[in-house]
């Protein structure tokens, strides 16, 4: 075949797909578009596909990974630089199977390993919605990956190990609510991207689903959702979980770190029924009841010194908000006594909250949150270790002591 005729054919194919895309755009009914917008919120597309002060869905956000920097893509309907030429089949193929229209492999920073569970109908609704957002002409920035990760064929290996294609299959032995929650958490919510540990190959193991892990590059620990020792929600009421997910604050604790982004951009927009369904599913993930609290395993001379310094600092800097007995003033000033987030095996989050402070996200349900001040500039490594050790081991809390070295290492953690 001559080059001209190949070109002609390619042109024809392009024109045809554009016509198909146009026809689909015309056919989309407003209810489907509204549903798609809602589902795009549930999938938190905006968080990655919009750069700071950038145009909505035009991509260009730098995502630092241990393998280099990826730049997110333009998903506006611009025909040249966005996904304006894509058909709903091609969109579904990307969501479901992690492949571009030309068959190329998508880097798994795009959570297609979760989105594969999304139904065709929901994928089509998101597609219909994305066709209605303002098109932005903005070329995708090439990824900046280090050798050998700049070789896309490596994704094949990753897929063999970590990707299991397949729509969500409801469990008939569970309630409709539970199944809806499971669908949202495992699919669009892509909670497993952070709450399942990422191994050295950049994959998550299904056998460790929702068991927690350190988020690479960000230096926040995504707690286990299955263990009541961490963020397992077995001891939380459904109301408390709903508040936490939608408002960002609840009687038992507040959202912080990367989870604040999820609540701010995604969860606060979900309706009551869906958040409740997620809460029911999440509560069910937690295995068994809380283990018995072991006696504090501290009393070496060094630890008691650490603790007495910690108590002194706590009374001076923390007690006015968090209370003399760590009871807090929930939900505004979170309780520290019994707060699972403080007692986890990983002390990373507790140390970082003391160093960096933080605000829960401003949400419709909690538009003016109360904040925690940073102490990085006021407390030495020893003092940070002392006060974190104190809150991790007081009032029945069963965390382990932390060292000044651990505190020091987290001073260099990336803030945003």
């Amino acid at each position, binding site marked *: 075949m001559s080059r001209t005729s190949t070109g002609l054919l390619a042109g024809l194919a392009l024109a045809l797909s554009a016509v198909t895309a146009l026809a689909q755009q015309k056919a989309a009914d407003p209810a489907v578009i509204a549903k798609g917008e809602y589902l795009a919120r549930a999938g938190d597309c905006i968080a990655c596909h919009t750069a*700071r*002060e950038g145009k909505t869905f035009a991509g260009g956000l730098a995502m630092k990974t241990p393998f280099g920097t990826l730049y997110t893509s333009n998903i506006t309907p611009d025909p040249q630089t966005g996904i304006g030429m894509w058909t709903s089949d091609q969109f579904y193929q990307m969501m479901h199977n992690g492949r571009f229209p030309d068959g190329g492999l998508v880097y798994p920073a795009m959570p297609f390993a979760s989105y594969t569970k999304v139904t065709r109908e929901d994928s089509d609704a998101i597609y219909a919605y994305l066709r209605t957002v303002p098109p932005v002409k903005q070329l995708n920035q090439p990824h900046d990956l280090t050798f050998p990760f700049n070789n896309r064929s490596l994704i094949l290996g990753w897929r063999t190990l970590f990707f299991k294609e397949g729509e969500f299959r409801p469990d008939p032995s569970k309630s409709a609510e539970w199944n809806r929650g499971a669908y949202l958490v495992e699919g669009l919510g892509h909670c497993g991207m952070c709450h399942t540990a990422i191994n050295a190959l950049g994959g998550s193991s299904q056998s460790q689903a929702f068991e927690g892990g350190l988020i690479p590059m960000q230096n926040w620990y995504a707690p286990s959702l299955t263990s009541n020792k961490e963020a397992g929600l077995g001891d939380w009421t459904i109301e408390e979980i709903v508040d936490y997910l939608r408002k960002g604050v609840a009687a038992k604790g507040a959202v912080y770190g990367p989870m*604040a*982004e999820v*609540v*701010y951009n995604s969860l606060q927009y979900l309706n009551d029924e869906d958040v409740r369904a997620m809460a029911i599913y999440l509560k069910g993930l937690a295995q068994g009841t809380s283990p018995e609290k072991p006696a504090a395993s501290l009393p070496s001379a060094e630890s008691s010194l650490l603790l007495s310094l910690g108590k002194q600092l706590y009374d001076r800097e923390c007690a006015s*908000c968090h*209370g003399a007995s760590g*009871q*807090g*003033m*929930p939900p*505004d*000033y979170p*309780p520290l006594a019994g707060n699972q987030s403080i007692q986890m095996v990983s002390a990373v989050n507790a140390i970082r909250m003391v160093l*960096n*402070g*933080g*605000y*829960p*996200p*401003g949400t419709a349900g909690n*538009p*003016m*949150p*109360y*904040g*925690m*001040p*940073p*102490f*990085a*500039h*006021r407390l030495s490594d020893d003092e940070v270790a002392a006060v974190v050790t104190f809150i991790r081991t007081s009032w029945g809390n069963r965390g382990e002591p932390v060292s000044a070295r651990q505190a020091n290492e987290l001073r260099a953690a*990336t*803030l*945003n």
Partner: protein
Amino acid sequence: MTLRLVSLFAFLVWVALPFGAAQSQTERAPDTMAARVLACASCHGADGEGTSDVYFPRLAGKPAGYLYNQLIAFRDGRRKYPPMNYLLDFQTDDYLKKIAEHFASLRPAFPPPSPPTDSKEILARGESIVKNGDPQHGIPPCSACHGPTLGGMEPGIPGLLGLRAAYISGQLGGWRYGTRTAIAPDCMQIVASLLTEDDVKAVAAYLSSRPAPADPSFAPHGSLAMPLECGSEPH
């Protein structure tokens, strides 16, 4: 036990229960802006008066429009300082406006001016730039926009008194090197890039040596004829 005693007991339980339940509920935080922005206190003081750390500015009494612009710029990354960028990441415009208005409304006492550590010549050079600018190099006087009393102008121009030399030179440096940017046209970026290192040092030394203003208020919007266009102070 007679029926009467039982019912008396039941009555007592009924009266006492809600009381006990109310007692066991923990206290709520005060429903005030001051309690909400306590997170700012460890660097800026509980009333925005500043702290002993010379790199952190006083916030109190600056025009709300200026403070709001800074909060937005930190949130959106236009002004780069990771601890602030991080804290404001997920706050709404409405809330940032309330925070700005809160600090703008406060009038805590000014700190005593820093005893000058620089030579008379340096202070004189600073005073000259602040009051007269450097026409030869196209540098306008600070007072042209920040007011003859240096108290700032509504809505977007801050007062310059009550700040420490380290903070002032840090900000001028930030404009020169692009870590601090404002809405275009970024007039302070233009001014700062015209200043030499020595000019920056002199201006910072002079401003930080000035006593507290007798009347710590800002000039009304449009009352000063500004020598250059500023995106953050629209006409």
